[in-house]
């Protein structure tokens, strides 16, 4: 409500000037602030089990609610929010999680290669990804999709992404699609709040708490690499991956965008992403593009590689190769 347009209010102001019963812009803002404070307090505290929330939880939630943008946080603030989230997970769900905010390693640029000749469509990677990244079990969210393609087909749109039969089928090949972590990422450009960006090690990440859920990035991505939380993600405590990263597999909430992060919580520790680790056929190669001795560099040098929709100029760090 704009107090300037409120004619009644103006009239009142004239009449009540003597009685000191003011009704002006300042008064309106004061009232509005009170109402907003009450409302947001109810919103922040009301989400969890009724009104039975401890004082500590209310305080932590408030601090979480008012925290800043991850990229502008100092290291101290980053450590604080990580500790708060760990404590909140303990209070809200009763699970002990270990969250990190590990920074990228210098001289590392992650690259990924997928062998279309080797993949046989067993979908072990999809399963490992869902478990590692605490993806919503209710809506069956998956970061990776495997398409069953006939020979000659090149685009996943032409393939069958929802097959469920014994694999591999003769005269077909399997093509895995996930976030390609483009160097020139269209999703990053589309985000109105800069909640998504590319880290120096090449991983495109999302600050879940800075995301407003407009899904512009989802529309901008030509590879369908992004997923939206239509509902509060549902993961059982015992199935939850406890080793988490602030920009990676920590629990998202409703209305937030999420995506593959090359398992940032694993890859920054020197481990392989869950999909690479789970692949039974060795079709997935992961490594440091700036390391001349790495496997990914060997693939780029010695194999026939191509990238999906290379003509769009998105410059993805995900190559397909054939034996």
């Amino acid at each position, binding site marked *: 409500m704009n107090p300037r347009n409120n004619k009644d209010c103006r009239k009142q102001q004239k009449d009540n000037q003597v009685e000191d019963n003011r009704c002006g812009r300042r008064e309106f803002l004061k009232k509005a602030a009170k109402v907003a404070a009450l409302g947001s307090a109810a919103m922040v505290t009301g989400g969890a089990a009724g009104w039975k929330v401890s004082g500590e939880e209310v305080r932590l939630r408030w601090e979480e609610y008012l925290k800043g943008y991850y990229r502008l946080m100092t290291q101290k603030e980053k450590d604080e929010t990580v500790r708060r989230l760990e404590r909140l997970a303990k209070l809200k769900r009763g699970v002990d999680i270990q969250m990190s905010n590990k920074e990228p390693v210098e001289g590392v640029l992650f690259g990924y290669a997928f062998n279309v000749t080797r993949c046989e469509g067993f979908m072990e990677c999809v399963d490992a990804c869902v478990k590692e990244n605490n993806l919503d079990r209710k809506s069956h969210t998956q970061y990776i999709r495997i398409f069953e393609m006939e020979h000659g087909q090149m685009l996943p749109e032409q393939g069958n992404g929802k097959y469920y039969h014994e694999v591999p089928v003769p005269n077909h090949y399997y093509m895995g699609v996930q976030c390609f972590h483009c160097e020139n990422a269209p999703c990053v450009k589309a985000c109105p709040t800069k909640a998504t960006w590319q880290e120096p090690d090449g991983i495109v990440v999302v600050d879940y708490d800075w995301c407003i859920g407009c899904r512009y990035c989802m529309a901008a991505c030509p590879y369908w690499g992004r997923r939206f939380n239509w509902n509060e993600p549902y993961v059982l405590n015992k199935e939850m991956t406890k080793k988490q990263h602030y920009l990676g597999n920590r629990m998202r909430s409703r209305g937030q965008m999420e995506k593959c992060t090359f398992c940032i919580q694993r890859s920054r520790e*020197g481990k392989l992403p869950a999909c690479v680790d789970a692949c039974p056929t060795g079709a997935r190669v992961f490594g440091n593009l700036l390391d*001349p001795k790495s496997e990914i560099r060997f693939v780029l040098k010695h*194999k026939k590689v191509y990238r999906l929709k290379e003509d769009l100029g998105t410059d993805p760090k995900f190559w397909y190769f054939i034996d």
Partner: protein
Amino acid sequence: MKTPIHKIFFFGILSTVMIVFSWQHSYAGQEGVQYKAKNAIAPFDDEKKMDSVPSLPDDSIMVTPKYQGGAFWTLTRKDKVERFKCTQCHNPEKNNTEQTVPTAHGDIILIHGGEEPLSCFTCHKEDERDFLVTEKGLKVDLDHSYQLCTQCHFRQAKDWVGGAHGKRVSYWAGKRVVKNCTACHNPHSPRFKKRWPKTYSLPLK
């Protein structure tokens, strides 16, 4: 007749300059990730850069060939074979156990080699059962079984050494430890079996 100076400028100097700059421009446009990767030739020292380099697993053994980064390792096999040493049974003394062959190796199905199938003694050394043997008759340790596969599958072996075939064990950083051929392929029937996928996908839209 003398050529006017503006004609010399337009057709001579300007066109040359434009050609030179267009060539430069077309190369400047290649500053992608591929260009970045190609130009990164400085060696990456995992131990210095990474603050927690994984140590070499206890059950790893150095592989004879070298990859582009030097020596690499693979996981051992001998200590995981339940009834090693083989000579416990395969010795000159007579074994009196009933139905020895089906109880000992009844689970082995040999589908390897296509038209000319392999026999047990293509790879296993007949007179020294604790070892494997190459076509040339060289004795090979069970941990180095890749040396046998290399004899026929040399293309795959080349990729395995380089990193385009096979898998690393858990870590992309640190010392390179890869899985042996027999970690993924059953040496007796190496082709992957047809099976149901682990999970399924819902349509996106």
